[in-house]
């Protein structure tokens, strides 16, 4: 029998060999030709711990820190490890219900898988941290992780500094190659956004080996591939924190904006947009509470009117009108017209002038001092109808070119995100408006000469214009950051545009002198005569811009001192009426504070007075009242519900009472009513709520 089947021995051996061959082929496939397994093994086993560096600090011009870093804690969860814990106990500690707990766990798994740690509750409040820290051992899978959070010791410049927030998916998509990861914080607005790359520093990565339960086994390759965290670099800005605070205070209870620039460098000293907010309400765990309300607020506290608000410059435009005519050689400083109360050369369009007395426009200086509408209408027409250019369109285009050169109708590339270019209308716009290029002429757009019509400018552009005039023909693009700590070549490129001198006109100093003299006269006997800076001569121009929606906007531009100007200011107060009334004093105090470093005793009383002047339109006040009523109704309902449940204390009620105990209002003029403090910290104009607050015990 054995002889008979001997050959089958060979067959069995072949079967063995064949199976081993198949195994070998699969091994070759796995081990030699599939690189993904190596990667998968590393993803499994190597835990990359990100070491967050300290963010850079932003200093003002006297090296005072506008913001600082403090430590806050996040509660981190690894869902796969957080099984079988006392969910209810944790929920009680966190003051959430189990449904919310389950939802967050689901979200965490969805966002970051169940084996990777994700943020469960970000930025714990200090007492929450204390409570959790004691009980952490009960909750495996949860841990507390440090995170650096901004605080703002001066409670100021919220819109300039911006805020940092956790990156979202849209942000990650936009900044794909910059190494952000889910859970990182990045500057979202203001200087934090613009200088993100400088401030963020470089994250360090430590690699650890972990096992299948994500327990750390030790450093990977003894830390060979670890990188050290490099702290973010500091920014040194031209902001003067005291001037900024003063300007914010002066603009309280108003809607408007103020910008102050050092004309010699283009460094912005102060920039305010009112209403503003306390930057501390958008840091740490306060952010979540307040964000929604800030966004919903009809007065838009997060909207930076200084770079985004578009206002007709009105009479503050007149010095520029004069400069264009002077540069074109159309007039000389001694050019004058006779004005008898208005400009009527255009027939249909009649521009009224505030002055009737003869000789008030007999030269440039007088015309500026008296803000003669006729004079500037006249020289505007001269510029548009300049024979050199042949046609209205070409004349207008040349004029527009001037406007752009002076920084109007284009972005000044200030180092804040989302600056608006405002508007110097293009000819196409007028063609459309009038129905064709032949259908309009210098008379049709006559009021452009006095800063009305379709022209608008941002407060920043107006202040920059003042810089050009103060400097007699040049400017540095306005910016906040003077220097960066340990400046690199890359930073030098970034900062290069702010260090580049822009020469705008070729007008002689003597012609400029006429403009300066005229603007000086404004402060001596003109519209701004009663606004004085102790011991300093300054030049200014008031403006009262017609506002189709309501009361006129009050505008004021100025630079000081008259000789060797050190500060140029533009102030806009919406619905403020005459330029000298609402905006003028604000500009005056800003300049006084900056130049004299202090405000005279008499001035201080006046500051309080200006600060309290309420110029908020009734529509906005009504909105707040409505919201207050709604909120009160909601609180009342919740209290009733809480009583019905016979609970000792309703959580909602207590959170309302201690909404923001740590933040102080910027103005500091509060009476100490706690709930009023809350509101004013959120929004500097607390006036509309007074009625309700006083009504409350």
């Amino acid at each position, binding site marked *: 029998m054995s002889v008979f089947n001997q050959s089958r021995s060979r067959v069995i051996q072949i079967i063995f060999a064949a199976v081993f061959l198949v195994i070998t082929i699969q091994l*070759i496939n796995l081990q030699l030709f599939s690189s993904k397994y190596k990667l998968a093994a590393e993803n499994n086993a190597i835990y990359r711990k990100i070491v967050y560096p300290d963010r850079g600090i932003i200093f003002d011009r006297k090296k005072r820190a506008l913001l600082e870093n403090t430590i806050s804690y996040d509660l981190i969860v690894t869902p796969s490890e957080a099984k079988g814990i006392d969910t209810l106990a944790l929920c009680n500690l966190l003051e959430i219900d189990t449904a919310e707990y389950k939802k967050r766990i689901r979200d965490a798994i969805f966002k970051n898988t169940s084996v990777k740690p994700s943020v469960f509750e970000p930025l714990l409040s200090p007492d929450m941290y204390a409570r959790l820290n004691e009980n952490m051992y009960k909750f495996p899978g949860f841990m507390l992780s440090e995170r650096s959070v901004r605080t703002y010791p001066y409670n100021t410049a919220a819109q300039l500094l911006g805020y940092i927030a956790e990156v979202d998916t849209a942000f990650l998509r936009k900044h794909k190659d910059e190494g952000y990861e889910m859970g990182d914080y990045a500057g979202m607005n203001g200087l934090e956004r613009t200088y993100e790359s400088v401030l963020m520093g470089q994250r360090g990565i430590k690699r650890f080996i972990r096992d*299948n339960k994500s327990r750390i086994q030790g450093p990977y390759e003894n830390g060979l591939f670890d990188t050290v965290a490099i702290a973010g670099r500091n920014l040194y800005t031209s902001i003067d924190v005291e001037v900024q605070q003063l300007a914010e205070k002066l603009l309280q209870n108003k809607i408007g904006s103020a910008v102050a620039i050092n004309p010699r460098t283009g460094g912005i000293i102060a920039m305010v947009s009112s209403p503003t907010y306390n930057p501390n309400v958008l840091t740490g765990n306060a952010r979540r509470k307040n964000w929604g309300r800030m966004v919903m607020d009809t007065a838009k506290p997060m909207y930076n009117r200084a770079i985004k608000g578009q206002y007709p410059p009105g009479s503050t435009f007149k010095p520029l009108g004069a400069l264009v005519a002077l540069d074109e050689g159309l007039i000389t400083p001694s050019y004058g017209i006779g004005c008898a109360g208005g400009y009527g050369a255009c027939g249909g369009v009649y521009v009224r002038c505030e002055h009737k007395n003869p000789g008030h426009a007999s030269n440039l200086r007088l015309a500026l001092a008296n803000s003669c509408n006729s004079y500037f209408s006249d020289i505007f027409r001269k510029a548009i109808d300049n024979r050199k250019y042949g046609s209205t369109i070409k004349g207008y285009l040349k004029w527009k070119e001037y406007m752009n050169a002076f920084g109007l109708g284009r972005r000044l590339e200030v180092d804040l995100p989302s600056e608006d270019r405002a508007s110097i209308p293009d000819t196409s716009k007028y063609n459309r408006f009038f129905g064709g290029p032949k259908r309009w002429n210098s008379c049709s757009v006559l009021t452009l000469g006095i800063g009305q019509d379709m022209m608008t400018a941002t407060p920043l552009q107006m202040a920059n214009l003042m810089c050009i005039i103060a400097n007699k023909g040049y400017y540095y693009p306005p910016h906040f950051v003077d220097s960066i700590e340990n400046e690199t070549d890359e930073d030098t490129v970034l900062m290069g545009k702010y260090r580049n001198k822009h020469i705008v006109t070729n007008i002689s100093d003597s012609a400029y002198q006429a403009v300066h003299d005229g603007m000086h006269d404004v402060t001596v006997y003109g519209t701004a005569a009663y606004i004085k800076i102790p011991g300093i001569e300054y030049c200014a121009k008031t403006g009262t811009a017609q506002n189709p929606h309501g009361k006129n906007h009050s505008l004021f531009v100025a630079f000081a001192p008259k000789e060797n100007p050190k500060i140029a200011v533009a102030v806009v107060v919406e619905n403020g009426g005459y330029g000298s009334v609402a905006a003028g004093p604000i500009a005056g105090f800003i300049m006084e504070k900056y130049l004299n470093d202090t405000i005279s005793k008499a001035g201080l009383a006046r500051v309080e007075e200006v600060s309290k002047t309420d110029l908020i339109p009734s529509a906005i006040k009504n909105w707040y009242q409505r919201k207050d009523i709604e909120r009160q109704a909601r609180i009342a309902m919740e209290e009733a519900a809480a009583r019905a449940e016979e609970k000792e204390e309703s959580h909602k009620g207590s959170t309302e009472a201690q909404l923001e105990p740590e933040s102080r209002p910027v103005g500091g003029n509060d009476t100490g009513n706690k709930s009023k403090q809350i509101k004013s910290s959120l929004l500097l104009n607390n006036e509309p709520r007074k009625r309700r607050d006083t009504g409350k015990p």
Partner: protein
Amino acid sequence: MNRQNNISQGVDYVVVWLYAVLVAIGILCIFMVEYRTDTNWLQSFLGGKTNYSKQLIFSGICVVIALLILLTDSKLFTAFANLSYILGILLMLSTFVIGKNISGSKSWIPLGGGFNLQPVEICKIFTALALAKYLSRQETDFTKLKSQVIAGVICLLPAVISVAQHESGMALVYFSFFLVMYREGLSPAVLIIGFSFVALIISTLLIEPNTLAIILSVIALTFLYLSRKNIKKRKGLLYLVLVIWFACVGIQRFAVPFIFNNVLECYQSARVYSAFGKDYDCSQNKRSAKKSDKAPRKPDDYNVRQSKIAIGSGGFWGRGFLKGTQTRGKYVPEQHTDFIFASLGEAFGFAGSFVFLMIYLFLLIRIITIAERQRSTFSRVYAYSVASILFFHIAFNICMTIGLFPSPGVTLPLISYGGSSLVSFTILIFILLRLDADRQMVLR
């Protein structure tokens, strides 16, 4: 007898050395899996607490057992073959009464001191002996169908019991005896039909039912066309082809889904499906649905995926001894028992794995060589049984770790941690060596 004075006479030292090398590799691999940087390994090696030191103790026991076997008279094995088989079956049955549940299968008998015996491991030896005994009987004529059926029942009885114990992987191993029977004269058709059946099931899983039906029909028609002249002569061939075609389509359309949905448990079906890169929908499974009201959980192929990652990350030269992150991180479940090849593949790469496979192949070929030099049928059948059992274990285990086969849960011979496994393979091999040493004697 002078044999007792010199037990080494006639022993095949090649096999002994291969055995020793493999056991050493096994202990090394278990050490690699269990090793932690902060422990004193020498101490824990001798401490008896860790798995590698336990395995070391087992291998010591195995040396004693091996010596005892070499000291016994080889006639003993033929004499007690049937008795031991009955004992083995009884042991297996006894697990239903005194069995201990370890990782889902109630197939262990507790021995005390933390040691457990798995009768199904030991029973392989007894079955091999019983088969050898039966085939070597003078009155057995293996060309007769009756003898073939009896031999098949001897082999498959333990398999049936182990399926009842939820040890389906072990049951598969008992099919290895069909290789032995093939060598002894079983018609190759059995192997071919068996292989074709497996191929059909696999293609059922891989290919759309309708597509596969069309493919089968095309094959049948092509065959009919090619053999049209033969069919004219013999009508029977036509009917045969038609019946086979009908059976194939029937299996493919109805039998396979029926088996997966009604016979196998959900996790088993899912394992089979996942081995071929498919997801099994447990809601179709009647057995799981009957057992519990809650929706059957969908098990994933985590084990095999991690095992493939471990082996794949080894590359050509491997990541080095004790340097594999998959192994150190314990990502592969059961990596000291069933999935130990994953650690080996990660640490020593393709080069190491290939050398390792060659050691195994060399051992198998060596055993077949030994088998063919036997003069007695008993020894030859037994030797083939040893080779086939080893081969099935190796093939199933390694194919499982590299994702070629669903994980049936068989150990890697002489490498995997576990006393039952090591001892039973030791006994298996050393009985062979004893028989081989006495090959000059005619044992019927």
